[in-house]
C-alpha cells in the first residue's frame, strides 16, 4: 500500500512539476479514487496543472457530480481539447451530466477545435441516457463486402492504434451491415479470398435505442466482445464493447439485489459501513406499517369473542407476504431475461402467476380455515362458552375466504410492482420489503373488511 500513500501525498501536496512528472506512474482509476476525496480548491488546482491528455484519462473515471463544477471553472478551450482526447462514449457521457447551457458552451468550443468530433458528439448526446447509442464508440474497423482478405489486413495495420481487433464488420456500399469476421477467421483465410466468403453472414447487432443492459446481455449470451450498434435500417453507427458491458451488468445486478433487499450496501467489506443505507428503508417501512395498526384499531370489539379471528392475522399476513415475494422475484427475473419484452410473453406470465396465486391461495385458505375451526372449537369464550357448530363453520369459512382474497391481492401487487420498476427507472424504494408492507396493508384491509361485514350481518361468534 506504499504506492497508495505516495499517490495520496502527491495529489494532496505535490507541486505542479511533481504532478506532471509523476501522475503517469499511476493508473487513472487509482488517481480518481484519491482525487474524489480532495477539497474543491485542490481538485481545481490539479486540473489547472495537468495537461489535456492526463485529464482525459482521469475524467473517464470520475462521476459527473465531481466533474460538473470543475468544467464550469475551466476555460472552454481546454475542455474542448479534453473532450477531443477522450473516447467518444466517455465524452458524451460526461456532456450528458452537464446543464444544458454548459453543454452547449462545451460543444461550441469543440466546434472550433475539431469539427468532426463536434459533429459526432452532438449526435451522441441526443441518444437517451442508458441507451446503447449513448455509450457506443467508433473504435472499430469496417470493410466492404467485395474487398479481399488482404485489404482487411491493410485496414487493420492502418488503424492499429485505436482499435478493438477481435472482429471486423462487413458493410455494403450503403454502409449497411451485412456480416462480421472474426480475426481468427481472417488468419485462417487465403489472402485473395473475398470477405463475403469468409464472413459470418449474420452479424448480431443492437439498436441504438436499446438499453445498455440489453447490449451487455446480448454480448454475454453470444460471447462476443464487440457489438455493432445500428439504426432501423441496419446502418452501422458504432460499437459497444465488453468492458463497458461488464460495468453495466455489475451495476444492474447490484441494483437488482438491492430491489430485493431494500438496501444497496452489500458490496461493502465491513458490515458497519452499511448502517446508514440500512436505516433509511427501515424507518420508512416501519412508519408505513402503522397503517395496519390503525386498520385493526377500527374494529375495537364490544365483546372479546368478536376479535378471535384477528389472532389468525399473522398467518394471513405471513402467507400473503410470501406469495407476493415469490411472484415479485419471478417477475423481476423474467424481466431481466427479457422474457416479457414481447407483450404476449408478459401476458402469459401474468396469467400463469395469477392462476398460481388463485390455486395456492385456495389451498392456503382451506388450510387456514381448517386450522381456525379446530382452534376455535377447542377454545371456550369466558362469557358464552363454546361456539355452536353453525357459527363455527361460517366463521372458519369466512377466515379461509378472507385469507384467499388477501393472498390473491398481494400476489397481484407482487406481479405488477416489478413492471412499474422498469418504468420509473430509479425506483429503488419499490423494493421487496416495501412490497411486504404493501401486502400487509392490503391483507389487513381485506381481512378486517370481511370481519366487519360478518359482524354487521348480525352473525355472532
Amino acid at each position, binding site marked *: 500500500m506504499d504506492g497508495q500513500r505516495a499517490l495520496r501525498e502527491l495529489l494532496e501536496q505535490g507541486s505542479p512539476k511533481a504532478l506532471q512528472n509523476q501522475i503517469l506512474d499511476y*493508473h487513472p482509476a487509482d488517481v480518481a479514487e484519491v482525487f474524489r476525496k480532495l477539497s474543491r480548491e485542490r481538485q481545481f488546482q490539479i486540473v489547472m496543472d495537468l495537461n489535456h491528455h492526463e485529464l482525459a484519462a482521469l475524467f473517464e473515471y470520475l462521476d459527473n457530480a465531481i466533474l460538473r463544477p470543475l468544467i464550469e471553472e475551466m476555460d472552454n478551450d481546454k475542455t474542448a481539447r479534453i473532450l477531443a482526447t477522450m473516447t467518444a462514449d466517455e465524452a458524451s457521457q460526461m456532456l450528458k451530466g452537464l446543464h444544458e447551457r454548459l453543454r452547449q458552451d462545451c460543444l461550441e468550443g469543440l466546434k472550433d477545435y475539431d469539427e468532426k468530433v463536434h459533429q459526432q458528439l452532438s449526435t451522441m448526446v441526443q441518444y437517451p441516457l442508458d441507451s446503447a447509442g449513448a455509450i457506443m464508440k467508433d473504435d472499430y474497423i469496417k470493410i466492404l463486402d467485395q474487398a479481399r482478405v488482404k485489404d482487411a489486413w491493410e485496414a487493420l495495420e492502418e488503424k*492499429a492504434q485505436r482499435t478493438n481487433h*477481435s472482429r471486423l464488420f462487413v458493410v455494403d456500399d450503403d454502409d449497411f451491415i451485412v456480416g462480421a469476421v472474426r*480475426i*481468427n477467421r481472417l*488468419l*485462417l483465410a487465403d489472402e485473395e479470398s473475398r470477405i463475403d466468403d469468409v464472413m459470418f453472414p*449474420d452479424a*448480431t447487432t443492437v439498436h441504438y435505442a436499446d438499453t445498455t443492459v440489453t447490449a*451487455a446481455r446480448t454480448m*454475454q449470451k453470444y*460471447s462476443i466482445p464487440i457489438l455493432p450498434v445500428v439504426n432501423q435500417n441496419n446502418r452501422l453507427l458504432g460499437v459497444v464493447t*465488453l*468492458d463497458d458491458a*461488464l460495468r453495466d*451488468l*455489475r451495476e444492474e*445486478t447490484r441494483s437488482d*439485489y438491492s430491489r*430485493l*433487499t*431494500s*438496501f444497496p450496501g452489500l*458490496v461493502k467489506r465491513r*458490515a458497519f459501513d452499511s*448502517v446508514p443505507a*440500512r436505516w433509511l*428503508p*427501515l424507518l420508512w*417501512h*416501519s*412508519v408505513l*406499517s402503522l397503517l*395496519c*395498526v*390503525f386498520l385493526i*384499531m377500527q374494529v375495537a370489539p364490544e365483546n372479546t369473542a368478536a*376479535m378471535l379471528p384477528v*389472532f*389468525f*392475522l*399473522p*398467518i394471513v399476513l*405471513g*402467507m400473503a407476504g*410470501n406469495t407476493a*415475494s415469490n411472484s415479485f422475484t419471478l417477475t*423481476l*427475473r423474467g424481466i431481466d431475461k427479457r422474457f416479457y419484452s414481447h407483450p404476449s410473453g408478459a401476458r402469459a406470465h401474468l396469467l*400463469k*402467476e395469477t*392462476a*398460481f396465486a388463485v390455486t*395456492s391461495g385456495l389451498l*392456503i385458505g382451506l*388450510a387456514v380455515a381448517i386450522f381456525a375451526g379446530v382452534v376455535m372449537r377447542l377454545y371456550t369464550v369466558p362469557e358464552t362458552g363454546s361456539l355452536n357448530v353453525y357459527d363455527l363453520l361460517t366463521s372458519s369459512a369466512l377466515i379461509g375466504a378472507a385469507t384467499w382474497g388477501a393472498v390473491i391481492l398481494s400476489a397481484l401487487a407482487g406481479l405488477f410492482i416489478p413492471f412499474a420498476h422498469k418504468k420509473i427507472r430509479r425506483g429503488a424504494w419499490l423494493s*421487496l*420489503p416495501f412490497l411486504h*408492507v404493501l401486502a*400487509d396493508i392490503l391483507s389487513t384491509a381485506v381481512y378486517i373488511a370481511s370481519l366487519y361485514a360478518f359482524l354487521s350481518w348480525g352473525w355472532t361468534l
Partner: protein
Amino acid sequence: MRKRKLTRLSRNKSAEIHGLIKHERRDNILRTRLNKYHPYDLKEALLMMRHAERARLYDYLNEKTLADVFAHLPERKARELLNDVSVAYGAKLLEIMAPDDAVDILQSMRHKDAIEYMALIKHDHRNALRRLSSYKHHTVGSEMTSDFIALEPDTTVSEAFKALHENAEEVEAIDTLFIVDEANRLEGIVELKQLLDASKGSVLRDVMTDVYRFVFTEANIYDAVEMMDRYNLHVLPAINKKQSIEGVLTLTDAIDVVEESALADTDRYSGLPTGDAVFESASKHLKRRLPWFFVMMAWLFAASGLLFLLDAHFSDVWLFVAFLPFVLATSNHLTSQSLAQSIVKVRRHVLRPAGAKMRYFLEETTVTALTAVFLGALALLLAWGVSNVDPEALTGSLSSIEFAMIIAASVALSGLVASMLAAALPLWFRRRKTTPALFGAPMMHSISDFISVVIYVIIVLTFSTIT
C-alpha cells in the same frame, strides 16, 4: 412455400432452427444451414426439442459446433444431454470444447461417469482438465481459460504471426500474446495492435509491455473481476506460485461470473428454484412451491396457536393486538437485511480464513443490535403517539408510556434475535446441494414471525404479571 414460412419466422432464431429440423428434408441444406447458426441460438433450440429431433440435430452439426452448443448449456443440462450421444462421441466433444467448460460439465457428473469420459479423452487434454478441476470453485483457476498463446521473447514478429495462424482455430482469444521464458514465467504481454504496428523483423522482447496486471490462480474470482472492471482490462493473466502462467481470465469469463453470481444470490435470497424454472408451467410451479408454503405455514400456525393459548392476558388491551402486524413487520425487515448480507458474503467466499465467519457474525450482530435500538426508539415514539391518538384503546392501569415501552422492547428484542438467526443460518448451514427454499427470505420471514410472536407474548405477559 416452405421457404417463405421459414424466413417469416426468422425473427426468432431458435424457433427457426426447430422449424428446420422438423420440416426440412434435404440433407445438404440442413448441413450447411444449421452449422451457420450461433451456438447460443442452437442451444436455445436444443432445449425446445424432443429426443428424436435432438438426435437429428446432432447428426447434422459438425463436432466443433456441437461442442460449442454443449458449452453454452447449463452444466446439469449438458450432462443430461450428453447421454443422447455415445460415450466416445461425448468424450470427443468434451475434448474439443474449451477446457474450462468441459471441467464444469465433468464436475457436475457422478464421479463414476466422469471417470468413464476422462478415460476416453486424449492424454494431454486429460492432464489439462485434471489441473483445471483441482481448483476450488470460487478461485480464478476455476473460471479462467487455459487456451492462450505463449511465445518466447526472442520470437520475431513474423514468427509470431505464423504462430497466430497455427492457433487461430484452437484458441478463441488471440488479441493478446503472452511472452514467457523457458520456465513458463510470464515476462510481458503483446497486444495484437502492437504486433500489427511493429516491423516484421523485430523481436517480441522489444515490442512487449513488461508492466502488466496479473492474478494468482488461487485468488478470489470476485476480486479478479473487480480488478478487471476497475482498470478496464481485457485479459488478466493468471499465474501460479512459481510465477508461470496457467491461464487467462477474459472479459467473457468475467461477465459470466457476474451474471451467474447475481442469479445465485437472488435465487438463494428469494428461496425459489434455480435457473430457468421461471418458464415452467403453472402446475409444475404449484407442485414445487406449494410444499414449502405449507412448511412456512406450520411456523405461522404455531404463532397463531400461541396467541390463542394466551389470549386472556393479551386481549385485555386491544392495542396490543393492533400492534401485532407492526411488531412482526419491523423485525421481518431487519431479518431480511441480515439474510441478504450473509448470502452475499458466503457466495463471495470472503469468509474463508479461520475465524472470519465468527468475526463477521459478531460484527453483523453489533450492527443489528444498533439498528434494533434505533428501531426500538422509533417504535417507542410511534406507539406512544398512536396510543395518545385514541386514549380509549388503552384500558386498565396501563399508561401510554408503559405501553410504548412494551412495544419498543418487543420490536428491538424480536428484531435482534430473528436477524441473528438469519445471519447465522446461511453461514453455517450452507451446502451447495440444499434447496434454496430452506433458508430463503420467505422461510426466514415465517420463522421470524414465530420468534416475534413468542417474544411479544412473553414481554406482554411478564409485564402484566408484574403490575
